[in-house]
């Protein structure tokens, strides 16, 4: 996976977030403050612009630029969290021009660690971690089992999607939804849903 791959991934996320904007905002309206779709739409539009204006030289550079842009443009909880995830992932990739599935798995693991460190959420707290953590695990397992890149990205996307849906019955313990206590049960976490979307975009780009 080369720089172009990562840039295309970001563009794919931008398009997917734009299409899902109102859906994500509605999820956030139910247990949060109705801005998650607008937040990510604003953020990833800026990411696409930044990547076009300052084309990165490496995969890592692409992710770091995406992450910094999210931090600069999004605000809210998801801005610093996603921004840090992409930055940490990008920094892990260093200067390498071509990324293996194993390296990608390590990078996403670093991204997850960044989210955990910053937000302090565990799996089961009904946050983006509930989608990201199983995706990172699935990716690592696929690498370990020696599947193709396509299979690995499929597995990661499916795990993220399952993880997002699995947040529905949970009571939130982090973020705004936690204020609702038991009333947060029965709704999908918007951040977990957008994480699933991000990994779905990765699968899409991988399958081309």
């Amino acid at each position: 996976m080369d720089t172009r791959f990562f840039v295309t991934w970001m563009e794919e996320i931008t398009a997917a977030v734009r299409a899902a904007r109102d859906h994500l905002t509605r999820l956030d309206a139910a247990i949060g403050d109705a801005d998650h779709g607008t937040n990510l739409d604003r953020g990833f539009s800026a990411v696409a612009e930044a990547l076009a204006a300052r084309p990165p030289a490496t995969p890592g550079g692409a992710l770091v630029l995406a992450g910094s842009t999210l931090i600069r443009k999004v605000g809210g909880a998801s801005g610093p969290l996603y921004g840090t995830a992409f930055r940490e992932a990008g920094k892990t990739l260093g200067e390498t021009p071509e990324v293996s599935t194993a390296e990608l798995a390590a990078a996403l693991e670093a991204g997850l660690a960044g989210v955990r460190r910053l937000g302090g959420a565990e799996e089961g707290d009904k946050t983006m971690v509930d989608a990201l953590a199983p995706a990172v695990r699935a990716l690592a397992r696929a690498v370990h089992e020696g599947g193709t890149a396509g299979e690995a990205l499929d597995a990661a996307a499916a795990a993220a999607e399952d993880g997002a849906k699995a947040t529905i019955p949970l009571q939130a313990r982090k973020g705004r939804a936690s204020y609702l206590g038991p009333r947060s049960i029965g709704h999908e976490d918007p951040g977990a849903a957008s994480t699933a979307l991000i990994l779905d975009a990765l699968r899409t780009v991988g399958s081309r």
Partner: protein
Amino acid sequence: MKKLINDVGSVVADTLRGVAAAHPSLRVDVENRIIFRRDAPRPGKVGLVSGGGSGHEPLHGGYVGYGMLDAACPGEIFTSPVPDQIATATTGVDGGAGVLHIVKNYTGDVLNFEMAAELSGDEGVEVARVLVDDDVAVRDSLYTAGRRGTGATLFVEKIAGALAESGAPLAEVARVGREVNDRSRSFGVALTPCTTPAAGTPTFELGDAEIELGIGIHGEPGRTRAAHREAREIVRLAMDAIDDDLPLSGETLVMVNGMGGTPLMELYIVFAEVAAYLEEKGATAVRSLVGDYVTSLDMQGFSVTTCALTGELTRLWDAPVETPALRWGR
């Protein structure tokens, strides 16, 4: 959705243009979205910076001025500002004595202010922080993101601002800010949801005989839904929640705050009941505010915030302040 806006995308920028046109005592950086005191930075004075999502007006821009904030950073609607913006405000108000960040306890606000503090630290600005978490509707436990910051933010900004104006050092200003927060409690009630321009539909549905108890200031549903009832009884529910958490007594600063769509008449009716409740508990509302101070767009409802005063806090509360939304003594 009917709103007096030009475009969903330009709401915050258009608001800032209006603030700039209306208040010559402020300097508004529309591009970076910062509302400065015109005379900032003031050499030797601790700078005060606050900020948060838009949609809570007059919070925070309405509290920029003499004796209160040096700068406010409005984010998108209900979305915390971004680190660069906060850092620019922070370096912009540093008069050499350091800067206090007044941050409402929400994951987004906390993270973005933290990042901004790091950036400002890199530029050599000393930054301290007061975290406001006064809302008793949310338990502060391992199972929540902690209490929300709501009405007490204004108390912290006013009182810390007065101390900063007197030339006190950063540690002292932060200390008094934390003390105000520790002595303050809030509880909110909604009669209707609000509608963000971007979502276009109300953030929740509420029947014609229902109210939400324990709401925050971001249009989220409350802790519980209840049947609508007399103002007197609603006030009792709110005040009981506050009193259970920090027993009311003595000289108290009280704010009855409208959520944006509540007629002032109703806020006075609520205040009458709040004052009566306090008296029952042996407390007295010696200082008070009644009006729209920390809002949620067009939501109908109110919040009550109390602060157990000390001699020092009363003196600082009474000190002159000159901002668009709070002004006395000048």
